[in-house]
């Protein structure tokens, strides 16, 4: 990465946030957190992140709401999104989430509790794709 990547992490559970931050802090990333969809939208306006890690079930505005708004706005429609979801037990529900996510151009889907190594692997992967894309555009 030429410059340090800016990652926004959104979850209504402060413990999940702290955890993910603890894991990502070990890497040269710039991190910010939001506790719900509305706060997330505000922070997006201030600075466009290189990656958004997003919980689905949140108060005020849920993760789907954030994704819908982002994908309908040109300046956010290329931000890679990783959904961070609580374990979904039922296969039809999980399929629904995966398919809806894919149709909205969500790149990755990780289930809580996320293993640190897996989380880091996916973050690196998404940032690399983003960098390659930026390079092509740039």
């Amino acid at each position, binding site marked *: 990465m030429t410059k340090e990547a800016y990652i926004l992490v959104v979850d209504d*559970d402060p*413990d*999940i946030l702290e*955890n*993910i931050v*603890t*894991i990502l*802090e*070990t890497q040269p990333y710039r991190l910010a957190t939001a506790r719900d969809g509305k706060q997330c939208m505000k922070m997006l306006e201030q600075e466009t992140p290189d990656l958004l890690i997003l919980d689905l*079930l949140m108060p005020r505005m849920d993760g789907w709401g954030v994704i819908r708004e982002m994908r309908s706005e040109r300046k956010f429609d290329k931000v890679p999104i990783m959904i961070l979801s*609580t*374990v979904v*037990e*039922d*296969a*039809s529900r*999980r*399929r629904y989430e995966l398919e809806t996510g894919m149709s909205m151009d969500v790149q990755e889907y990780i289930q*809580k*509790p*996320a*293993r*640190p*190594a897996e989380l880091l692997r996916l973050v690196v992967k998404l940032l690399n794709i983003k960098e390659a894309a930026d390079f092509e555009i740039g």
Partner: protein
Amino acid sequence: MDNSGFDSVFDGMDPRVLITVARLRNSEIFAELDEEDLVSIAGFCREENYQDGHIVLVEGQPANSMFIIERGKVALEKKVQIGRHTTPRNATIDYVGPGQIAGFSSLTPPYLYATSAVCTEPTRVLYIDADQLREYLREQPKAGYPIMLKMARLIGFRYRGSIDTLTYFLSIVSHELRSPLAAIENYLQTMLGGFAGELTQKQDKMIKRCVVRVTDLRALISDVVDLARMRPEQIQADFEWFDPGDTGTESIEDVRLAAAEKNIRIRVAPPAKFEPIVGGHRRLRQVFTNILNNAIKFSPPDSTIIFRAWYEADQLIFEVEDEGPGIPTEEMDEVFKDFFRASNVGDTPGMGLGLSIAHNIIEAHNGEIVVRNVGDESGKTGACVRIVIPRNLMTPEMRKREYAKDLQQIEQ
């Protein structure tokens, strides 16, 4: 009070009967009956007063009386027994108060009380002899019909009430219990990964124990939630194409830590090549994980578990074999029942839901799950669980297509 019918029917009647009629009218099921019927029914009613704690009726006993609660409160209870060896407990499923009825079961076959009823306060009831009431309603269908309608409605209410409670309970269990657990698991994994500083050997060991226990707890929550939505149609609705080899690998990953802890080796004997099959991917993973976990729990340290799979005609067969104590022969038939725990399990933790859930899942696959002991004269012991899954199952989409084809053929 309505006096119009009073003159004709009630003229010269014992005032005590009149009072009973008025009291019957205050109850939820007799409110709309004609005076004539009420007078007759009053003939087999009497007032009774009970102390707090009095048992009004007993679950499973012949139902020959019904009670209108006039004052106080009555708890409806059901006996709950977890496992065959534990003391049964009473669980309160509802309360009834003034105007409400206890002892519906006395009006419908098989005439056995579905719950027990216990006074939780000093209670006054109108006791009704149900044999006589039934006889009367049979002879007077005009009175019987509205009462049966009312009863059907009341039963419907109670039924819907219990479904609502169950749904609510399940959503609480699945989300509210799982979320904090996910947070705990995350912290533990983060610490184990060394992201919060280096751990001493002792800390590392303790945190690994935490992970194992938390994983068990998560599995238990899933099991309890699943048990309630384990109808075959629900399982079949999730059927999809998948690689059974992946499922096996995932299950082994699920139990890796628990196995490592007892230094148990899981030896895998897969077929030369796994072919995709239709089934409940996550459900089968749950079956394998449950069975592997079970095997690990009952295996001695440093032993080996064999996890093998092979194809046979139109079936895929899996086996999990351990070196544990096996299952007492006389309990073989019981192992797939809810909350069953063999008598030789000692302190091994668990609720005994794992195998019964596995059984339900495999049944929904039209498959077979059996357990046998693999001990021999040399003193070797062990249990072997065999799972047979047919290879002709259909996804919901395939079933829909089949159905459409059938329809077409019928039309032609």
